[in-house]
């Protein structure tokens, strides 16, 4: 374990981790879906409403000024987390909205009939459906790059998918099913050589890896607060410097305008141009508290800790009879998301049974149905880690799987494969 991260100590900062589920201590291994929140984040929400509540960017009074400062301070923290400038970061509701913003505000003006948008087969629905909608509006086509047998992006297949009509390459930075980390710099170089822009879905990477978005060579980087200790209802979009200024608004309304006349309006400068209406002010400020917390622990330490947990989980699960793992074995090429299936038991049955031991894991298609079809499975179970998880929790999961096998009556001879 990294000397810099003491999970047992950090756990004390997360009130929910003290509760029991079905009479057992909570073993929360569904962090890729959403993480739990530290006291500092919960307190930041209350602190805002108790001491600063006011609408932002429009008031002259003291509370409005304080709230605006706190909100803009959080923008600076979100930018710092990915090595960027505050003016290039837009707050949204979630990573999904960030991607939809790009599809509308960038895509509608730049993608036309016969143009191509290149995705990978391991994208989350949030990085597929907005592009299908864009293709539907414009007559563009979608092309998919594949993955190799271990679940890593197949760069040859990506190279083949990118062509002269490619306008955008949209890739996940880290698969929410396989854990595979995409070599974004190589992807971006390929896209750029073809004159295409690059969007990176960072919903799974920003919470778990050190990220320098400008250095990745991408044009857009989307991420979400609730997967990185922050509250729900807050996401962010980073765009390459200067790019937001070239884009028309996504949503129209208050705050995003410069001048409104009866018939037409002019737009505010970015990032306000893309933040129509009153945003989730409390949520953004609390996201700032989450980013402070992550900074205090250090993303290198978070990554190192999760790599250890991932290695242990892969090792323990691969020793468990009947388990099939989906995703790369090499922990250097992946993050802390471990998908598996157990022979003879459907993932929902597995999830129900381990829940009885207080173990929260995901079961289902993980909003990645094209990937599920590619893998030839209807669903998987998924354990996903973050900074407060401990090795002993993996042991609890593996023991709970024995209970599944007992109920579903697997015979030991079938485990020998």
């Amino acid at each position: 374990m990294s000397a810099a991260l003491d999970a047992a100590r950090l756990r004390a900062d997360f009130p929910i981790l003290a509760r029991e589920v079905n009479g057992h201590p909570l073993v929360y291994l569904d962090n890729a879906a959403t993480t739990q929140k530290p006291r500092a984040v919960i307190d930041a929400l209350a602190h805002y409403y108790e001491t600063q509540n006011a609408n932002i960017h429009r008031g002259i009074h003291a509370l409005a000024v304080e709230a605006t400062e706190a909100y803009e301070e959080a923008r600076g923290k979100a930018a710092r987390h990915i090595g960027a400038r505050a003016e290039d970061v837009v707050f949204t509701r979630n990573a999904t909205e960030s991607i939809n913003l790009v599809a509308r505000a960038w895509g509608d003006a730049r993608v036309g009939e016969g143009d191509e948008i290149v995705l990978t087969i391991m994208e989350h629905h949030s990085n597929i459906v907005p592009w299908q909608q864009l293709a539907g509006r414009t007559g563009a086509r979608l092309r998919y790059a594949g993955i190799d047998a271990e679940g890593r992006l197949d760069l040859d297949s990506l190279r083949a998918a990118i062509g002269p009509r490619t306008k955008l390459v949209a890739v996940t930075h880290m698969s929410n099913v396989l854990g595979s980390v995409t070599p974004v710099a190589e992807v971006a170089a390929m896209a750029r050589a073809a004159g295409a822009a690059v969007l990176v879905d960072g919903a799974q990477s920003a919470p778990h890896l050190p990220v320098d978005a400008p250095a990745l060579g991408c044009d857009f980087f989307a991420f979400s607060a609730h997967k990185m200790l922050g509250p729900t209802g807050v996401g962010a979009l980073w765009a390459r410097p200067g790019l937001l200024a070239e884009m028309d608004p996504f949503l129209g309304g208050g705050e995003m305008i410069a001048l409104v006349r009866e018939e037409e309006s002019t737009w505010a400068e970015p990032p306000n141009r893309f933040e129509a209406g009153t945003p989730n002010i409390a949520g953004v400020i609390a996201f700032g508290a989450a980013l402070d917390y992550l900074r205090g622990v250090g993303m290198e330490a978070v990554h190192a800790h999760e790599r250890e947990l991932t290695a242990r989980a892969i090792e323990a699960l691969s020793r468990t009879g009947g388990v099939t793992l989906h995703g790369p074995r090499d922990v250097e090429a992946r993050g802390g998301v471990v998908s598996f299936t157990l022979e003879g038991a459907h993932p929902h049955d597995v999830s129900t049974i381990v829940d009885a031991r207080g173990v929260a894991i995901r079961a289902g298609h993980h909003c990645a149905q094209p990937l599920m079809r590619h893998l030839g499975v209807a669903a998987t179970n998924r354990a996903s880690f973050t900074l407060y998880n401990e090795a002993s929790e993996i042991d609890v999961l593996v023991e709970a799987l024995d209970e599944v096998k007992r109920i579903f009556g697997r015979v030991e001879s079938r485990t020998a494969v």
Partner: protein
Amino acid sequence: MSRAEPPFDDLYREVILDHYRRPRNAGALDVPTHRAEGLNPLCGDEVALELVVEGDTIRATAFRGRGCSISQSSASMMTERIRGATVAETRRLMELFEAQLTEDAEPDPALGDLEALHGVAQFPVRVKCALLCWKVLREALTPIETVDDR
């Protein structure tokens, strides 16, 4: 085991696991008169049902599907139970089956083996699994009018 341990012996009854491992009436019919299929989009469970209805009686049943033990055993037991039943009886069974999952009522003896799924009522998130094939059955029978002769 702790006091709060959920009642697995109620959920995963042997008859359920048996139907899951060896589904009855699995496959397709040569000449079905009625068919429908359904999906639980959130979990991916699938059931495609085929029936031969002659007059007011269900003469043959078959289903194809994939999913969890609850959704698939429910389909297997359902196709067993409704074969030979009239459409009116089948609609009555639908009500009885739904009642045992959504109300704190004892299962009706008319349900036969399907009574084994009563334990699902204690796992609310799994109720939709047990009901999937019944929703499909309801759709398959939609064209047939019956008089409630209770």
